[in-house]
């Protein structure tokens, strides 16, 4: 069994290495046909002409090609800017599409082969690495977590973190350099929605595979705990079916791309003009989607949170939560439990909620009034600032990139505006709480350590007080790791929440 596990690790590493290697595959040639088909008519005479030196020149590396292309485009734009010809500056994202279209070679011709050698090997390797755990006795498996370089901020964690950060930055801001990777999933994309894979398809695919494979790991690790299994099955389902497959299928049917479980303000572009227009132009289904999206946060959140706590979303449905609970599970112990962190969290997460609301109000004002400036501020620049700093850097680069250093819920805890909104309901109007089992706590600290939200669970448990915290996502891990059976996630009458610690804990009766 140890052998299978080791073999799995080697396969995984080999697949990962080959995956990196695929970035060097293919050769890239710009042809006149490509220029005429990819560039808009108005850019043929400007950019089209400037690109002539590249035509019919074959690049052995996509990165060199992209770099040469970007240099020409940037130079041209700089000339326009110097000449203050603002209307001529080209903002179209040509780079990614042209790099992809200019490719030819092994990867382009045999995507399935390379798919198998990369994602195939990685998934098979990961499963081989994971599955032998089934032969061990069921029970909490936290041995060595703080001795291991991958789970205790050691060198492996640093490498993984650096890779994730680099990946996010490239994916968000320099997707043209990942053109080869999108070719790996072109066949799947075509099968699902008829088109070649965009970077977002690639991202959605990798994301879903991570949730699936690490979901299997989670289900095995907690096979003695039905709550964890059911919850894991739920996040895996919502990510795979509702977040990944369904929108692609909708697109293939010429309907708007729509993720039914994404809720504003996490889904911060829900009220952006292009989304509203696309929904409004899609007939009854579009109207339904619009109403659904609004109803979710106006009615869905308060009602479901009242009955079940915010866990109904954060650790059962949400995509960010789904990744955190599967891929992120090995890192949950790294969350900061200090009071200082809690103070920062409260300011930050509510500030982001405020920013999301203000940004959305401005965007809607522009939508209805047609005027882009709200009190002398340009609503378009506010929305792109939000998108860049919060939607991109905070939620992606920091949120996921820092998994191996700061735990798996950095975004959910410090940044997610929806979590803040759900949290208000959870704290003020909900039947949910974590019940403390009388005086049984031995203050060991397992609960606090493994709370991904950095809640000092023990501080409540050792006083006999129930845990009622707006940030608790109801993952149930504190209850699972408690060696004394002290904690239980429960829904019951609001008044039965023990909010004040009893004077004396079960003695002196």
């Amino acid at each position: 069994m140890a052998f299978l596990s080791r073999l799995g690790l080697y396969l995984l590493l080999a697949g990962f290495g080959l995956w990196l290697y695929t970035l060097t595959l293919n050769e890239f040639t710009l042809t006149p046909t490509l220029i005429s088909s990819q560039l808009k008519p108005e850019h043929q005479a400007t950019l089209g002409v400037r690109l002539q030196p590249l035509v019919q020149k074959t690049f052995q590396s996509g990165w060199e090609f992209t770099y040469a292309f970007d240099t020409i485009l940037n130079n041209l734009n700089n000339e326009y800017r110097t000449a203050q010809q603002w209307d001529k500056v080209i903002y179209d994202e040509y780079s990614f599409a042209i790099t992809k279209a200019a490719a030819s070679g092994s990867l382009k011709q045999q995507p399935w082969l390379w798919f198998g050698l990369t994602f195939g090997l990685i998934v098979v390797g990961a499963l081989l690495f994971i599955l032998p755990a089934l032969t061990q006795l069921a029970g909490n498996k936290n041995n060595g977590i703080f001795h291991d370089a991958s789970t205790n901020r050691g060198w492996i964690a640093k490498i993984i973190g650096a890779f994730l950060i680099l990946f996010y930055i490239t994916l968000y801001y320099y997707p043209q350099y990942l053109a080869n990777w999108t070719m790996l999933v072109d066949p799947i994309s075509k099968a699902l929605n008829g088109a070649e894979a965009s970077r977002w398809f690639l991202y959605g695919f990798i994301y879903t595979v991570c949730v699936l494979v690490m979901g299997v790991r989670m289900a095995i690790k907690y096979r003695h705990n039905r709550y964890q299994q059911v919850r894991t099955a739920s996040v895996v389902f919502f990510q795979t079916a509702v977040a990944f497959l369904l929108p692609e299928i909708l697109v293939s049917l010429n309907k708007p791309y729509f993720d039914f479980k994404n809720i504003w303000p996490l889904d911060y572009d829900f009220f952006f003009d292009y989304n509203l227009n696309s929904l409004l132009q899609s007939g009854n289904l579009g109207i339904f989607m619009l109403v659904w999206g609004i109803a979710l946060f106006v009615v869905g959140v308060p009602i479901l949170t009242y009955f079940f706590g915010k866990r109904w979303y954060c650790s059962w449905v949400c995509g960010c939560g789904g990744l955190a609970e599967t891929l992120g599970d090995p890192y949950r112990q790294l969350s900061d439990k200090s009071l200082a962190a809690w103070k920062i969290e409260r300011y930050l997460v509510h500030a982001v909620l405020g920013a999301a609301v203000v940004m959305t109000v401005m965007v809607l004002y522009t939508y209805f009034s047609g005027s882009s400036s709200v009190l002398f501020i340009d609503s378009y620049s506010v929305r792109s600032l939000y998108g860049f700093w919060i939607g991109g850097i905070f939620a992606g680069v920091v949120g996921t990139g820092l998994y191996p250093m700061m735990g798996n819920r950095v975004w959910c805890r410090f940044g997610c505006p929806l979590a803040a909104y759900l949290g208000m309901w959870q704290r003020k109007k909900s039947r949910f709480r974590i019940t403390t089992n009388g005086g049984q706590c031995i203050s060991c600290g397992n609960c606090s350590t493994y709370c991904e939200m950095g809640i000092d669970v023990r501080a409540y448990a050792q006083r006999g007080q129930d845990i009622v915290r707006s940030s608790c996502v109801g993952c149930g891990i504190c209850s699972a790791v408690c060696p004394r059976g002290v904690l239980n996630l429960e829904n019951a009458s609001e008044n039965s929440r023990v909010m004040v610690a009893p004077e004396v804990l079960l003695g002196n009766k």
Partner: protein
Amino acid sequence: MHVVIIGNGIAGITAARELRKRSDCRITVISKETDYFFSRTALMYMYMGHLKFEHTQPYENWFWQKNKIELVRGMIESVDFAQRKLFLSADSQTVVYQPTLLERLTKVASKPATSASQVRDLSYDKLIIATGSVPRFGDWPNTHLDGVQGLYSFQDLEKLERSSAGVKQAVVVGGGLIGVELAEMLHSRGIHVTMLVRESSYWSSVLAPEESALVTQHVQKHGINLRFGCELAKIQGTQKVERVITSQGETIDCQLIGISIGVEPNIDFLRTTSLETQRGILVNEYLETNLPNVYAVGDCVEHRIPPQGRKSVEQIWYTGRIMGETVAQTIGGQRTPYRPGVFFNSAKFFDLEYQTYGDVPAQCPDGIQTFYWQHPSKEIAIRINYRQDTQAVTGFNALGTRLRHATCDAWIRQQRSLDYVLEHFQEADFNPEFFEKLRLSH
């Protein structure tokens, strides 16, 4: 008023915190073990890599300054009760915490006014002794060899970390709670563990035969070699331990011996004083000793008149905590007797959780009957003891399942009948959602 507390374990620290809630008096806590309070119960999780030391600290380091609880790291060498004076070892120092930048920016803590200084003696107005226990060691020869040790203090853990490096086989002597924790710890590092248990099954002095059998099987399933009816006879080795010989004459090679045959109140340094002691420091129901203004709480206590149904020396976490709460009320001005209420305790044997409420002795006493239910296929068992005459329940044991403390406690106090309890058993279910609902019946 200056209240001095010897010992920063659960008993001493609870007393300090509860007293601070009630009073503005000066409070000093002294410990030779660690600067700050940590949970002894989590020693095993540190060794197994589940936690780091900082995770076992229930309060952050800035907490003590903020609550004006002065800390001293050092050993009390002697006490002059007549002069109300404590004498500390030469290395004793006040503990002063320098907050981190983040703690200062977020106004969690501010810079300390003083820096660490030496303390050689301290005067008190009231003294709380909370010195805990020391592991019992037995009188075998050769216990001084490298690789023979108990597990109680943080220093013991550090020692174990060193002495278990490279070890292949270990022997754990004693079949109690700390013994099985030691076994699990060593096993987690791939060390082959043999446990020598004097009784004929695991922890049979406390657990009834069925529970004992279930735990025994569970521990064996996890790869521990259990030897019953077997005691340590000899330890052999030159500098480091090399093997043991058991009372059955068997030789077992090992490079490490964990001794866990129980603990004794840690009061040697008080034996020759006017403080009355037997096994522990003798106290009345107000936790007062024979000397005025001197109290004792926690593991080091021996009750002159134990609370009903309780032992006179009860070395568990919870009683330490309740004693700390109680003594704080008394010193805070409201003289309060120690009434620990219905007994409860819990433990975990590898992956098998155990909870108990009320009285469930190993042998059912006269007039008490027992209801025992075991799951047909899983490692789950429940025992309910009840009075033969009134049918009132007197105690619960739960293995592999979680029971609600408040409910069991209320049922015992309200003397509910067995039938009532069985009928309402779901109310005591404390397992997570989606877990199997247990249906108990006669």
